[in-house]
C-alpha cells in the first residue's frame, strides 16, 4: 500500500538506514530526545497522510483546465455542465470523473504554467488556450490534432473562416474556438455631454479622437482623457487592444506572412508611434498609470468612476469589468458607456481600404498531446460546444461568438452590445497577433518602445529605430525587414 511504502521511505531517510557498499549501519535510539523527535516526525507524516495530501492524487479520468478567475457566473455554469456530462456518460455506461482546475491568476503566469505543463507532459486533457499563444503551442506540437473529430462536425462548419485559419497549422486543426472579442473605443457619454461633445460619437479618423480628448481636457480638468498604456509590465493589452489595432488602422502590419519576416520599420508603424507621441506631448494620458503593472485594472477603475473619458479596450470589459456584479461595476452602464469602432487613420487608410478596424483574439479548447483519453476529451469538447450551451457561455461572459449558429440564437441576440460588436468581426485583422513568436521578443520590444514614448524619453523616430534594432538583435537579421 502506498502509505506503508512512503512511510518506510521517509523513515529510512531520516535514520540513514541505507545500504552502502554492503554495510548496514547501527543506530541507537536511546536518548529521549531522539525518540521525541522521531515521534513528532511520525506524527506529522501520519497527519499529512491522513489528510490525503502525501498520497498521489488519484488520477481523474479526465481533467480540464480553465482560467476562470474567482467565482462569477461562468464557473458555476461550467461546473453544472460538467456534472451533466458526467451524468450523461454514466447513463451511457461509461462513467467519467472530471477534475476541474481553475486557474485564478493573471494571463502571463497562466501561459507560463501551460507551457511548462505541456513541455513536461503533465498537462490536463482539455485546455483553455488563448489564440495568440496557441499559435506557438501548435508549432511546438503540444496539441493533439483534431482533424478526425471535426470532419463533418456541424459547429466547425459554422465557424467563421478567419477563426478556422487561426486554429490550424500545417494543414491540421488543433483548437476549437469558444469565444472571441472585438476591440472597442469606450467613452463616457456623461462626460462627453458635460464637455459639450456629441454623445453618439463615432470617430472617423485619429484626429477626431485627439480633438475629442483635447476638448475633455480643456473642459473637465480632473478627468484623464485617454487611457492608453505602454511598457512591458503593463501586460499584453498594451499592444493587443491598443497599439496593434491602431497600426492596422494606419494601413500597416507588423508581420509579413508571405516573406515570413517582421516589418520593423514602416510608414504606418511610424505613424502609430507618432500617435502615442502626440498624446503624450499633449498630456492626454497619465504616464504613471499607463506603465503600471496593473494598468488595465486601474484604467478600468478610473473609467468606471468617471475619471477617465476614453478607453480603447476589449469587448469583454463591458461585462467583466463594468457589468452587474463586476469589480468596477457601473450602475447605469447602459446609459453612460458608449462604444465606437476604431477608425482608420483617415477614412479608407486602413488595410483592405476599410474605414474601421477591429482585432479579435479569443480563447479555445485544445487537447494536450499527452492526454491519455483524447477521444473522451473530444466528447467533452463536443458536449460543451453545443449551440445553446455555447451561446450561454458567450452571452453571460459577454464574449463575441465565433460561430454563425451561436450568433443567431435568441440568447445571444438579446445582448444589444454583443450583437453590435459581433457585427464588427468583418473588420478584423487577426495577425500578427497569432503569428508565431509574437509573444516573445517582438511584443516585449514593442511594448518597451511604447513605454519610453509615454514617459517622454523618446520620440516616435527614436522608438521605431530602437525597436527595429532590438528586434533585429534578438531574432537575427533574416527575420526582419526594413521597409522605410
Amino acid at each position: 500500500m502506498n502509505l506503508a511504502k512512503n512511510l518506510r521511505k521517509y523513515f529510512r531517510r531520516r535514520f540513514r538506514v541505507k545500504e552502502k557498499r554492503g554495510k548496514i549501519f547501527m543506530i541507537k535510539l536511546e536518548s529521549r530526545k531522539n525518540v521525541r523527535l522521531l515521534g513528532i516526525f511520525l506524527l506529522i507524516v501520519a497527519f499529512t497522510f491522513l489528510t490525503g495530501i502525501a498520497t498521489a492524487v488519484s488520477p481523474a479520468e479526465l481533467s480540464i483546465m480553465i482560467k476562470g478567475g474567482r467565482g462569477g457566473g461562468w464557473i458555476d455554469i461550467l461546473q453544472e455542465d460538467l456534472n451533466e456530462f458526467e451524468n450523461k456518460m454514466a447513463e451511457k455506461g461509461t462513467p467519467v470523473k472530471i477534475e476541474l482546475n481553475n486557474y485564478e491568476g493573471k494571463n502571463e503566469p497562466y501561459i507560463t504554467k501551460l507551457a511548462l505543463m505541456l513541455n513536461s507532459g503533465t498537462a490536463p486533457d482539455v485546455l483553455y488556450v488563448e489564440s495568440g499563444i496557441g499559435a506557438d503551442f501548435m508549432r511546438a506540437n503540444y496539441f493533439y490534432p483534431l482533424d478526425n473529430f471535426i470532419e463533418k462536425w456541424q459547429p466547425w462548419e459554422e465557424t467563421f473562416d478567419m477563426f478556422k485559419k487561426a486554429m490550424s497549422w500545417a494543414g491540421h486543426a488543433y483548437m476549437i474556438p469558444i469565444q472571441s472579442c472585438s476591440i472597442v473605443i469606450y467613452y463616457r457619454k456623461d462626460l462627453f455631454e458635460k464637455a459639450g461633445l456629441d454623445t453618439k460619437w463615432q470617430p472617423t479618423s485619429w484626429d477626431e479622437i485627439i480633438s475629442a480628448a483635447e476638448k475633455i481636457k480643456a473642459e473637465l480638468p480632473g478627468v484623464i482623457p485617454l487611457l492608453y498604456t505602454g511598457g512591458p509590465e503593463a501586460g499584453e493589452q498594451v499592444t493587443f487592444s491598443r497599439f496593434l489595432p491602431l497600426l492596422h488602422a494606419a494601413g500597416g502590419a507588423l508581420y509579413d506572412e508571405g516573406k515570413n519576416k517582421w516589418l520593423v520599420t514602416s510608414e504606418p508603424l511610424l505613424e502609430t508611434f507618432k500617435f502615442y507621441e502626440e498624446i503624450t506631448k499633449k498630456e492626454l494620458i497619465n504616464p504613471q498609470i499607463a506603465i503600471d503593472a496593473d494598468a488595465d485594472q486601474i484604467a478600468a477603475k478610473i473609467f468606471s468612476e468617471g475619471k477617465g473619458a476614453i478607453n480603447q479596450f476589449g469587448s469583454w470589459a463591458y461585462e467583466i469589468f463594468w457589468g452587474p456584479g463586476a469589480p468596477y461595476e457601473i450602475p447605469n452602464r447602459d446609459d453612460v458607456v458608449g462604444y465606437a469602432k476604431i477608425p482608420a487613420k483617415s477614412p479608407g487608410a486602413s488595410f483592405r481600404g476599410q474605414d474601421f478596424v477591429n482585432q479579435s483574439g479569443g480563447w479555445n479548447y485544445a487537447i494536450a498531446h499527452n492526454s491519455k483519453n483524447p477521444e473522451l476529451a473530444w466528447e467533452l469538447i463536443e458536449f460543451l460546444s453545443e449551440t445553446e450551451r455555447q451561446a450561454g457561455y458567450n452571452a453571460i461572459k459577454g464574449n463575441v461568438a465565433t460561430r454563425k449558429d451561436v450568433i443567431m440564437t435568441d440568447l445571444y441576440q438579446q445582448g444589444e452590445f454583443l450583437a453590435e460588436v459581433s457585427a464588427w468581426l468583418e473588420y478584423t485583422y487577426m495577425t500578427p497577433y497569432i503569428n508565431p513568436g509574437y509573444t516573445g521578443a517582438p511584443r516585449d520590444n514593442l511594448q518597451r518602445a511604447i513605454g519610453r514614448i509615454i514617459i517622454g524619453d523618446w520620440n516616435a523616430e527614436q522608438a521605431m529605430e530602437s525597436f527595429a534594432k532590438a528586434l533585429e538583435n534578438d531574432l537575427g537579421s533574416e527575420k526582419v525587414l526594413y521597409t522605410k
Partner: protein
Amino acid sequence: MKINYKIIVYFLFVLITIYIFAPYIWLFTAAFSETASFVTEIPDDFTLKNFVEAFQGNTLRWMMNSIFIALVSVFLGVSVTSIGGYALSRNSFRGKSTILYVIILAKVLPLTLLAVPIFGIILIANLMDTYTGLILVLVGLQIPMSLWIMKGAIDSVPIEVEEAAQIDGATGWTILIQIILPLIKPGLTAVGVISFVNAWSNFLLPFILMSSELKMPISVGIYSSFGMWGDIDYPMLATLCIIYMVPPIIFYLGLRTYFFQGLGSISSTKG
C-alpha cells in the same frame, strides 16, 4: 551628556521598530474587514469572514502542502548535512580544500540561475509535479549553506570529547548522534530555521515544478489567487499573507535562542 546619548539611542530604536513593523499595519487592518483596499485605515467593519473564507478554499490544502514540504526538506537537509559536516570537519583528504571552496562559491549562487536547468533535470528524472522532486531540489539547494554552518559548528566541538567517548567504547554512529549532535544544537537550529524559511518562502521552484493545484504550496497559491481581471480581493490578500506568515514566525520564535547561538558559531569560528 550621557542622558543625551541615551535619548538618541532610544529614538533610533523607536525608528527601527516603526521601520520593521511598518508594512504589517495594513495586513492587520485589511484582513479583518471586507471592503478594504490598499488604504491603511481602521476598518469600519470588523469581521473574521475572510479567514473563514480562506480556509474554505484551497488554502488549507496549500498550507498543509507547504508544511509538509518544508518540514521534510528540513529534516532531510539537517540529516544529510550534519553527517556531511562531520565528515568535512574531522577528516582531511586530498580534495578537501577544493570541496570547501566549491561550497562557499555555491553559496552565492542565485536561484534563477539554476531554475531552468533544474526544470530540465527534474523533467528527465520523471519527477515532475511530485513532492519528491520538489523536496529533493529544495534540499539540494540548501546544502552549501547548511554544510558550511554545520562544519563550523562541529569544528567548535573539541576532538577530545570524541576521544574520551571512544575510550568509553562508543562507536562512530553513537558518537555522532549522542555526543556531537546535542553539542551543536545551536548549529542544527540555525540550519533548520534557515532551511525552513527558504523552503517556505520559495516561490519560483514550486511554480515551475508543480502543476496540480492540489499539490501547490502556499507560496504559489497566494500568487495565483489574484483575480485575473482586476478583482484583487485586498482583504483576502491580506488574510492570505497573514496565514502565510504565521508558520515561519512560530518556527522562529520557538527556536530563537538556539538560532542566535547557532549564528554565533559561524561568525566567531574561522572558516
